[in-house]
């Protein structure tokens, strides 16, 4: 058992099965589906709320997420928030057990194509994050909430999202790195 936990890389089929079984547990015990991107809305509402509470309360989207009504309590820190916070801890433990932690500021593929500048990489990571979450909120889900949780429920919304995501991701990846990029991953 310990040897397994110390193994740096598990088969994707084992990991996929684990995530599938984890979904059973969240549906059955918690009446929840795995998801992550809604938590970014709560984070944004929490931070903006510190300086401009009225603005957050007046926004219809924030209100749906974090403003409680008479019939429904909407805590700022809820189930999914705890999940997302612990994602980093889970990955940290997994990496430490197998000694596979990294210190990556500029990934090798990026450095090959765009150079070793940290500032450049961080700037584009930031911009990528903005685009990513805007898309996730427009679509009403991300890779976990839509592709996995929605996919396994056979939701039409989720399969539409997943197909669009892979199509645009593949196109973007080849535009950014070209075929030659495949030699650097």
């Amino acid at each position: 058992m310990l040897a397994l936990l110390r193994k740096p890389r598990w088969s994707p089929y084992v990991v996929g099965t684990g995530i599938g079984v984890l979904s059973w547990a969240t549906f059955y015990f918690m009446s929840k589906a795995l998801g992550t991107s809604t938590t970014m809305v709560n984070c944004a509402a929490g931070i903006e709320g510190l300086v401009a509470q009225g603005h957050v309360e007046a926004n219809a989207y924030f209100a749906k997420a974090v403003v409680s009504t008479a019939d429904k309590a909407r805590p700022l820190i809820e189930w999914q928030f705890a999940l997302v916070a612990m994602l980093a801890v889970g990955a940290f433990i997994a990496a430490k057990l197998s000694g596979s932690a990294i210190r990556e500021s500029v990934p090798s593929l990026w450095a090959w194509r765009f150079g070793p500048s940290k500032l450049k990489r961080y700037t584009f990571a930031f911009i990528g994050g903005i685009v990513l979450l805007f898309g996730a909120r427009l679509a009403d889900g991300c890779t976990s909430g839509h592709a996995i949780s929605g996919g396994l429920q056979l939701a039409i919304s989720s399969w539409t999202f997943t197909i669009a995501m892979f199509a645009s991701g593949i196109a973007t990846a080849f535009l950014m790195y070209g075929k030659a990029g495949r030699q650097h991953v």
Partner: protein
Amino acid sequence: MFNPIFADPKTLIMGAITGLIFGFLLQKGGVTRFNVILGQFLLKDHTVAKTMGTAIVVGAIGIYAMVAMGMISVMHIKPALLVANAVGGLIFGVGMVVLGYCPGTGVAAIGEGSRHAIPGVIGMIVGAALYAEAYPWIAKNILNLADYGKATLATATGLSPWWFIAGLAIAASAGYYALERWERGHKAT
């Protein structure tokens, strides 16, 4: 506002345990790595598709079995707003490739030691804030297009969900079998 700030402790603990296991699995699967995710979109390394497809098939079998046995009464299906789902997915794909992570793997990647995932997650929070500002316009002009409600492949066609689950399971098994064979042959040469 923010009243209550915290959900009840049991809910938070359950969420925390779920996140701990999920993050652990993502790291073990290698999908917290920038190069693995980009490798998928460059069609070189199919770890992401193998992981996601397996999770979907295994998840679907268990969830629909529990529905059939009456163990689950509430599903969590997001409404089919096809224009928003598709356009959102297209935008998401661009962001995922530029950042190199999706929201969940980005947060997990920080735990594994990816420094550039930190500005990525800060960007995500900014992206959520920008969406909230754009929401009134989007709700009026986009979210009302092609709205089919909480439809699934089963409810839309009137067929049993098991046809689709069987189809997915067969397609995934055959696809992965062929992929593994091809990858082995490709490595040998």
